[in-house]
Structures are given as C-alpha cells and as structure tokens.
C-alpha cells in the first residue's frame, strides 16, 4: 500500500507520468478493493489537487463497501473537498470511477436527506467532467434530481440553458430532459419545458420506456398551457413505438386534451374532478389545475381579437366566470403577466383592449434580431459540419452504396468496389 502511495506521489507530475500511473493503478485496483477498510488513513497522505487520479482510485475503493452513519458525513466532506479541488484532466482519464464516486456521493446525501448539500459539489463535478458545454454526462440527471429535491431551481437553470449535442447514454438524456422539464415547469418557463419534454418524447427509442410515458403526460399538459392546443399526432420523426403506444398509455390525459379543445370550461372541470385520483397518483394534479386556468386565459385572449371594448359583465358571461369581479381579477393578472394589452375603466366597468405596442423600431429589437441571426448561423454551420462528417462515414457509404439505383455505366462511380455488394 505504502509503495502505491509513493508511486502516486511521484508520478503525478507530467502527463506521460500520469498515463503510466494509470496503468499501475488499474493493475492495483483489485487489491485496493480488497483492502477498502484500511484505506482512509492513506487518503490523508495524498493531495487531491496534485494527485487527483490516485486519490480518485483510493476514494472509489473506500466508498465501495457499505458505509456506516458516522462515516457518512465525514465521507461527504472528503468527497466534496475532492471534487472542488481535483484536476480536471486527470479525472477525465478515469471517468467511470469519477461518475461512480459522485453517484455514491448523491446516494449518501439523499440518505441523510440533505439534498441541498449535494447541489454545489455536483455542479462543480459536472463542469470538471464535461468535455465541452455541449456534452451530457451521467452526472447531469443526478444534479437535476438533487436540485429538484432541494427545490433550488435557479441553480439548475444555468445547466439547462446550454445546448446539448453529445450524449453518452440515451438513458441519461431521457432523465435529464424529464427532470429539466419539471424544473422549467417549476420556474414557469413553459417554452423551455416544452422543448425538453419534446426531446424525450420524440427521441429514438426501440421500445417505449417509462420515462417517456411520464414525460408524455407532462408534455400534453404543458402543451395545453403554453399553446392552448395539443397536436393529436406526434411528429413523423418520433419513433414508431412511441407513435403507436404513448397515446394508449396516457389515455386520461389525451381525453383531457380533447375536452380542452372543445372550449367548454364546465365540461373540463367535471372531467378533472372525475379523474382526480389518476392525476394525483401521477403527481400531476397541480399541472392539471394550471391547464384549466389557462383555458380562461385563452378565451379572454380570443376576445381581444374580436372586441375593442367590452364590459366586465360581458367578459364574465362569455368566458363563463361567476362575476365581473372575477373577470377583473383575471384580466388584471393577464395584463401584469404581459399576456394581453388592455386598460380597465372601473367607473364604467369596461375593458379597453389595446394593440401590442411593440413597433419593432427600437435598438433593443434590432439587437435581438441580430443576435438571433448570429445564433441561427452558428447552428446552421454545425448542421453542415455534421452532414459532411456523416457523408464521409464508411458505414453510411456502405449502406447508401448498396441501395443506390444504377441506370447505366456512368453511374458506377464514387463508391469503391469493395462496398458494392
């Protein structure tokens, strides 16, 4: 053991040394695991900021076995300190071990029921493990889970803002998008939630999984709240399994959506009452209630298309509210949220609907359009790059070459002979 420690201390200097160190550590891994109980004192001899890789191996072996209650909080401190001070390049050499350690960290935190303690360390861990900001690691969903449980949604937002393009494991993506959707709903950013849930529901999957089913239920509700409608069919690029089965598995929600589209609030409310238990068991009752109240908003918005001024009594009648007072409250809320532009004349009990005052003439607007154009150009370039990469991929060429039609001799070109089967 001591020999190993000295080797770690010696070989953690340059990159080549670290590589040889890694080989040594891999060979010594089993013996480390065998001696897991004896290891904690050795940890003090190693410095996490210089000997990250060695420390990691030791740490992983230490936490492998069952951990007692007293050991738990001291371990938490050790791991947290390690995460904050470790060197990113060294850990990336052994990503599995790192992920393993962090997952155990999360389990401990949950056992102690203090998810808040895990949030900041996990965030640092992600940043260190990520190859680029577009990379999704296995730690992302764990981090979001901790944020959800500790209810600190704002920290999660920074992670959610990034665009994800590289994924290690599809399961990570599903969980990440699902939790991300829930966090966005909590922050009332329904557009972002819709985007994330849409990704889960339309992701390629050979068989429908439970995450997709739950995500679909929330997707329907968020779609109703944000757009006021739910498209009955999933887009064509969704997997065939999803297209066929998701709707059957989420029957009450689909019916809720069709009841919503009929536009009668009373029917919607009776339906919700009747199926309250099902919604509650899925923990979606709050969202369902939000969907119902969004219907009032949708109806009032429709009124702005037809009327210039309307009395509060009329609004209450048309939107099926109980009294002009309620109508006034709804309209007031909508004006505050920026969903409609109107003025309320309390003396006459009239509401005057105004046009959207945005004239698209300000500097801010020009900046917004400009930045939008820039972003789209970057995304477009990325798409082109990916397309070129794909066209050079030998597997793709083999498949495409086989299926090509040949009409005359001149068509026998580009694809090399070897691939023409």
């Amino acid at each position, binding site marked *: 053991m001591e020999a190993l420690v000295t080797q770690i201390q010696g070989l953690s200097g340059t990159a080549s040394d670290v590589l040889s160190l890694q080989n040594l550590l891999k060979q010594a891994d089993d013996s480390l695991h065998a001696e897991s109980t004896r290891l904690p004192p050795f940890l003090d001899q190693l410095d996490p900021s210089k000997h990250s890789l060695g420390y990691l191996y030791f740490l992983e072996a230490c936490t492998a076995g069952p951990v007692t209650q007293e050991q738990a909080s001291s371990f938490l401190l050790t791991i947290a300190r390690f995460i904050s001070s470790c060197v990113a390049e060294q850990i990336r050499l052994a990503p599995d071990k790192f992920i393993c350690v962090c997952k155990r960290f999360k389990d401990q935190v949950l056992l102690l029921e203090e998810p808040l303690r895990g949030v900041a360390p996990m965030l640092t861990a992600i940043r260190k493990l990520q190859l680029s900001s577009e990379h999704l690691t296995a730690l992302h969903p764990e981090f979001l889970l901790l944020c959800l449980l500790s209810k600190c949604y704002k920290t999660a937002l920074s992670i959610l803002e990034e*665009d*994800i*393009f*590289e*994924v*290690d494991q*599809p399961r990570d*993506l599903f969980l990440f998008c699902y939790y991300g959707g829930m966090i966005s709903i909590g922050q009332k950013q329904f557009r972002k939630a819709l*985007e994330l849930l*849409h*990704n889960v529901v*339309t*992701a*390629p999957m*050979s068989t429908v999984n439970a995450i997709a089913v739950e995500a679909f239920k929330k997707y329907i509700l968020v779609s109703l709240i944000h757009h006021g409608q739910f498209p009955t069919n999933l887009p064509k*690029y969704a997997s065939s399994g999803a297209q066929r089965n998701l709707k059957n598995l989420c029957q009450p929600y689909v019916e809720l959506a069709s009841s919503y589209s009929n536009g009668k609030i009373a029917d919607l409310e009776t339906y919700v009452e009747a199926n309250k238990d099902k919604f509650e068991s899925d923990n979606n009752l709050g969202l369902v209630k939000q969907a119902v109240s969004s219907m009032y908003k949708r109806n009032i918005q*429709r009124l702005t*298309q*037809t*009327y*210039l*001024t*309307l*009395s509060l009594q*009329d609004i209450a009648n048309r939107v099926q509210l109980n009294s002009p007072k309620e109508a006034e409250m709804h309209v007031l809320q909508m004006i505050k949220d920026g969903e409609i532009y109107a003025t309320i004349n309390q003396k*006459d009990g*009239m509401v005057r*609907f105004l*046009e*959207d005052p*945005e*004239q*698209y003439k300000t500097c801010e*607007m020009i900046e*917004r*359009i400009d930045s*939008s*154009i820039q*972003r*789209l150009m970057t*995304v*477009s370039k*990325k*798409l082109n790059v*990916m397309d070129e990469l*794909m066209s050079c991929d030998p*597997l793709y060429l083999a498949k495409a070459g086989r299926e090509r039609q040949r009409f005359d001799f001149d068509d026998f070109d580009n694809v090399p002979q070897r691939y023409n089967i």
Partner: protein
Amino acid sequence: MDGEDDISNPHMEEMCANGIGGVEDAPSSSTSTTERKNRPIISGEQLDIEAYTGLYSGRTKITRLIFIANHCDSTSMQLEALRIAYDELKKGENTQLFREVVQKIDGRLGPNYSMDAAWCATVDGKAEQKKEKLESELNAYRTNLIKESIRMGYNDFGDFYYAHGALGDAFKSYARTRDYCTTSKHIIQMCLSAILVSIEMCQFTHVTSYVSKAEQTPEALDPPTTSKLHCAAGLAHLEAKKYKLAARKFLEVGPELGNSYSEVIAPQDVATYGGLCALASFDRTELKNKVIDNINFRNFLELVPEVRELINDFYSSHYASCLEYLGNLKSNLMLDIHIHDHVETLYDQIRSKALIQYTHPFVSVDMRMMADAFKTSVAGLEKELESLIAENQIQARIDSHNKILYARHADQRNATFQRVLQTGNEFDLDVRAMLLRANLLKHEYNLRASRKI
C-alpha cells in the same frame, strides 16, 4: 356616419315593369294553362298545388306531390296534393305508388279515392303479360343479333320498368343499351334516360357521369338537349352542395329549355335554384356579369319575380327587403324536393354575405343603424358579427361600449417582424432537436454495430 352605397340599377326599372305587368294580367283563379304560366307560382303566397304540379309531368309530378303531402302543415293542402296524385296515378301504371298514396289518403277524401283493388289487379296482370311479350321479343332479337332491335328491346324494357316504378331495373336496362348504340343520337337518348332514372333514384353521381358522357358527343347535341344536360348537371352539383358550380350550370341554361324537361325540372326551378345559389356563392362582379346582365337568364327570372327582386335588392344594398323576400319564399321552398335541405345553408350564406358587404366600404359603422337595416336587434347583430369576425370574414373590431364597429386592417410590418422572430425560434428549436436525435441514432447504431462485431 359615412355615406351609404346607392347603386341605381338601370335594368331594374325595366324588369320591374315587365314583372308587375305580368302579375296584374292573370286573374287569381286560374283555369287556362297560359294564364297559369304567367302568374308567379313559386312566390311568397301559399303554394297553389294544382298550378305547381301543372309545371311537371311524369313520375316527378307524383313524387313532388307525395313530398308536399308529407311535409306541409295544413291538412287541406295535404289532401289536395294526395287527391291530384291519385288522379295522376290512375292514368299511369305504377301500382306500388298507388298503394302508397291510398294508404296516405286513409279514406279522408271519400269513397271515390279509396283502394281500387280491381284496377290494381288489372294493371298488374297487363304488366305481367307485357313483360313476357317484351322478354320473348328481346330474346328473339338477341338470337338474331340485330343491334338496333336489341337496343330498342332494352329501351322498351327500361321504359316499362320505369312506368311501373322499378327504378333499379329500369336503370340497368338503359345501361345495357350502351353496348348496342350505333349513332350519337342513340347515345344521347340512352344518357337522357339514364339521367332521368338516376334523378328519380336520387343517385346524383350517376347523373354527373352520364352528363359528361353525353357532352362528349357534340354532333347530336341540339340546344334543347344541351339545356337539359345543364339542368341535370346543376341538380347534381346542388345535391353535392357545390353551390357555385350549380349556379354556373343553371345560369348556362338557355331559353330553349322551355317546358321540354318537365319530367325533371321546370323553368321556374331553374330560376330559383340558379338565383339563390348564385347569390350565396358568387362575389359582386360575378353576380353582376352572370346574373343581372345575363339576358338569357332574365327570361327565367321573369317567371319568379320575387327572386329577381331579391337579387336586385341585394346588389343595390337594400338588405332589409332582400331578407324579407327570402323569408317569404322560405315556406314554399321547403316543399321542393331538391332544394329543401339546402335552404337553411343557402339562407345563412346569403345573410353572411349581406353583412360582410354592408361593412366592407366603411371605416366605422354604427351598429344601431346596421341593426335597423337588417331588421334585427343590436344584441343579435353583435353576436352575428362576432362569429363572422372569428371566422376572419370581416376584418373589424367591435366597440361594445359605444356599439360601433371599427374596421381593422392588420399592420403588415409588425406582423412580418413577429413572424420572422417566430420562424427563427422554430428553426433553432428544430435544428437543435434534430442534431440531438441524430447523435442518439448514431450512438445506437454504433452500439449495435459494436455488438455485432
């Protein structure tokens, strides 16, 4: 309020003179047929059944009478219709319809109009004999393979079945003559017979196909036949709810039609159907060119002066009187077999068009004056306008407090900017999602590939 349109129609005075003159000539109780044709028969007054059915002949007369008996409210009209039907049926050979009519009469018209079983038996017996004769003749012709005789044999069969009410067999027989038609006249004859039977059977898809078949042999088409074909096509479109096409077909019918197609349609019907469909589906220019300035159609409109009046009122924006004429005509139109289930739709369309046309030239409209012009209440008018605005047929907004309708023209510039930003967002979302999915697929593919290896 801004000024109202007042288009003075120079033709109106001329037509008014003709129409009114015609009305005042005829006495109220009509005995002679010429006088009957001068008096407007489809009008706002209660339908004169005898005059109405005098326009038709053949099977359609009886079906129309039965329809009127089934759908009218007053018993006197019902009995009148059934009585005339009974008399007509006695002259023919259709015992099935006869039994039906007798059942409907139910002895209410006295002993003269009860079940005449003897007559039925005689007619049926004669029918059997005739059928056997026709069959043997037909077989003889078939063995001799004389095309013309076979064709005439099937034709006679068709006529026989038609007279006895077996419409399906009649149609089949007429269809069989197709193989033996040698000249285009034969083809036309076959088409016309098939069309007649199809109309009676209410299978209007056949009507359309046979009309197009007939129109493909232009050599034998004389003007009366072309008019008949136009009428048939118009009826088919009407049934299919294609009001614009129906209107165009009816408007092409020439005056040569006269009374030659009384087994199907009367010139009054052509005017009514064509006028109403045109009003419901044409825009102003088309209405002026094809209906009001159409000299041929003017002759037809003479026969139904109320329809003529209402078209002119609509064109010159006298909406109240136009809608009044429509209301008066409604009860009689509901007794017509072809148009009765389209009356509501056509009326709604005409009313919507009137509302839209009224608001079109103005920047702001006082809803109280508009309600007066349309003879409704302000609240009712507000509801109608609301539904039209929601369907985007009127671009306006209602000021419910002051009861004024303000025209609203969408700001193109703002709308464009909004659309641009929105499209940009959607593109961004879609491409990012696409890249993500591609990545997942690549990962899955690699996984599968590595597993295979």
